[in-house]
């Protein structure tokens, strides 16, 4: 049974590409949300097995979404991988302290993305 993953990113074109990568090469069931708030609601209602979360988003940014997911009882146990174009060492050090399962940098390798996500989330294929 394929894993259900929620991808949250404000860039709709990137969402499209990620969806392609994970569905076609990772055999995952992909849910997408174009904002942090939409992502939170979807995480609570659709109970994904994992979440790929963009950090830099207008309004509620990825770190705020992460905090709320971790605070909320129903979403606390969902493993999360951060996706970010913020590649400065201090940013990465900050992300490492958040308790996420992994961090993937933009631009990512589209062929390897599904593997990287599955590995970070601890899914065996």
């Amino acid at each position, binding site marked *: 049974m394929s894993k259900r993953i929620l991808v949250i990113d404000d860039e709709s*074109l990137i969402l499209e590409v990620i969806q392609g990568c994970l569905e076609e090469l990772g055999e995952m069931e992909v849910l997408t949300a174009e904002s942090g708030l939409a992502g939170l609601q979807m995480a609570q209602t659709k109970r994904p097995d994992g979440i790929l979360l963009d950090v830099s988003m207008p309004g509620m940014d990825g770190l705020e979404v992460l905090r709320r997911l971790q605070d909320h009882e129903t979403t606390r146990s969902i493993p999360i991988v951060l996706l970010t174009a913020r590649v400065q060492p201090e940013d990465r050090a900050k992300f490492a302290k958040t308790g996420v399962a992994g961090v993937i940098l933009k631009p990512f390798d589209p062929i390897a993305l599904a593997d990287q996500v599955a590995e970070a989330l601890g899914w065996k294929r």
Partner: protein
Amino acid sequence: MGDTIYRQVMPYGVAAASTAIALLLSLWLEPFSSEVALFYLAIALTASYGGIYPGFLTLVLSSLALYYVLIPSVPRFAVDANSGMELAVFALVGGLIALLNGNLQASKYRAEQLELQLQEMNQSLEKQVQSRTDDLKYGADEIQDLYENAPCGYHSLDNEGRIVRINDTELRWLGYERSELLGRPFAQLLTPQSVQRFQECFPRFKKTGFVNDLEFEIICKDESLLLVNLNSTAIYDESGQYVMSRSTLFDIRDRKRAEAALTASQARFAGILDIANDAIISIDAQQNITLFNKGAEKVFGYSATEVMGQPLTLLLPKRSSNVHQRYVSEFAQSTEIARQMGERGEISGRRKDGSEFPAEASISRLELGDERVVTAILRDISDRKQAEAAQARLAAIVASSQDAIISKTLEGVIVSWNASAENLFGYSAAEAIGQPIAILIPPDQLHVETRFLSLIRQGESIQQYETVRRRKDGTFVDISLTLSPVRDAKGTIVGASKIARDITEQRTLDRMKNEFISIVSHELRTPLTAIRGSLGLILRGVYDKKPEKKHRMIEIAAQESNRLVRLVNDILDLQRLESGQMKLALEACDTAALMQQSADAMRAYAEEHQLQLIVIPLSVSVWAAPDAIIQTLTNLLSNAIKFSQPGGKIWLSVDLEDRAEQPVDNASGLTKKAADCPLTRVRFAITDQGRGIPSDKLETVFERFQQVDASDSRDKGGTGLGLAICQKIIEQHNGRIWVESALGEGSTFYFTLPIVEEQAG
């Protein structure tokens, strides 16, 4: 007294006694002798002994005795003729006897007296003779003593120049006994030079009879030299033959020593004059140079021989020589002995080559008999002036430095504090100087300061150490510190200089730069992610069997490539505008033409968004770079289109700046002629009916990547740099750009441009 009375009374007693004895003997011898003879004897004895008056007393007493005792026939108290006669004869004879014996006695007495006087006279004469003899003897001794022990030497030389007399003083000087020298030629005692002089002078002396102030060197017995001054007179006998000399010698060794010392002192003084670096110049009453030392030669470039006797004005700048002459004359007439020159300004000297130099001088006056010598001591202070000027320049640099410049002792006590230090730390110089440097240092940094001070003591410097300091008001400031040792003239480290630069601004700039790079990096990575992802999937053949999906991926790649190109272009434009690399070439442009071109470029885009673009043209000639203004206008129109709802309107108009208050609501009635308005600026306005901008964002929208909503760049295809570029372009036109907006009603972006003058006038 008693003795005198006894002597006066005694003869009369003898008279009485001798009379009584004569009476008794007469009575006893009555049968055998004449009673009268005994009484005569008594009278004679008494007169001989006591003189004439006791003799007469004896006579009277004897007469009475005879009358009453020895002539019984005669009745008592009755005198007969016979006995009277007898008595009268007795009295007469007795009187003669008394008289003669009395005279004899008186003569004898006078003779005795004379003899006594003679004896006294003899004794007195003998005393006088003795006294005179004593005096003479004393005088001779005294003369001998004076001769022998006078503070000068005496000697006499005979015709052959041999010593015939010499006093003790000279013997003492020479160390000889008298016997060793008497008969010895005086010349034998002299040094060869003195012998020569003696041989020249002695024959002449014997003829002339005198010689004065001859100096001789005499060799003493112990071979030491005695230097004497000799005066001599010659003694001749009655026939005029020379007998001997009488010479007086004075020991002049002390005088010679004093003269030598004086000469040496004068030589030393001359030497000091010559080694002095200062110019020492004396002038006479006519202000001609009489002394010009080596220092003066160095300072003025003249040799002493060149200037001796020359007027002092030779050494002065021509313009000030009169003033100087008057000054020196006035000083010479004054009662002052010395004076510092130049109280009322600088003294200048003129060198031989005509160049002038600043000098410091003092002047002094010396009275030498009738002569009045004025001496000036003068120092060339060119070097000092230069040093002072250099120091003043340094002080000015320190005072005007943007950096705080502080110095402190090795114990960390502040000793100087410039104006920038006051500004940076908030303490005035008066407050800071004397305080420990620790007042500036946060407690957790104190150990660093201690380490720095120990490094300074070892002569090391600390370069651009970035740290934090505390201001007077307790706030902190980021600074960059440079510390260097301060040395005194001997090179000993006595403190530290500290240059503190406020790096708050630099840090802010660094942070902004880092943030910009971070944002740019993020903005570039986002489209790249989409491009790489979509192309990667196509390349892998994932959508080989899904052509629609494949096409979509190609679309995504193309769209994001365009976005990337815009972004890169905008970043480059902005960077070039900000760095000044892009210099806009301004020319006279017609506003109507600019508006039209921009509107034409954007009309299709507006229609695509179902928007009406209304242009209200006004023809004004402005100074502008046309491409840059069209870029600005299209950018602003593009924003207006992007943020408007379909069916809305967008206005593009130009106004003159004084009409700012006029509402811009429609196309009618707003066309005017620029020539009517003597104003120098036009104002462009781009108005939309879009969602509006919150008031807190009205300023920040012009900053880089400061869209009202970050999603705008994604949704609207913007780069986040458009307004920043517009602002830079307008700033380069000396114009102004701003936005007025009401949320939900729309926004108007304005910018101004300068009008070409001919039209404005």
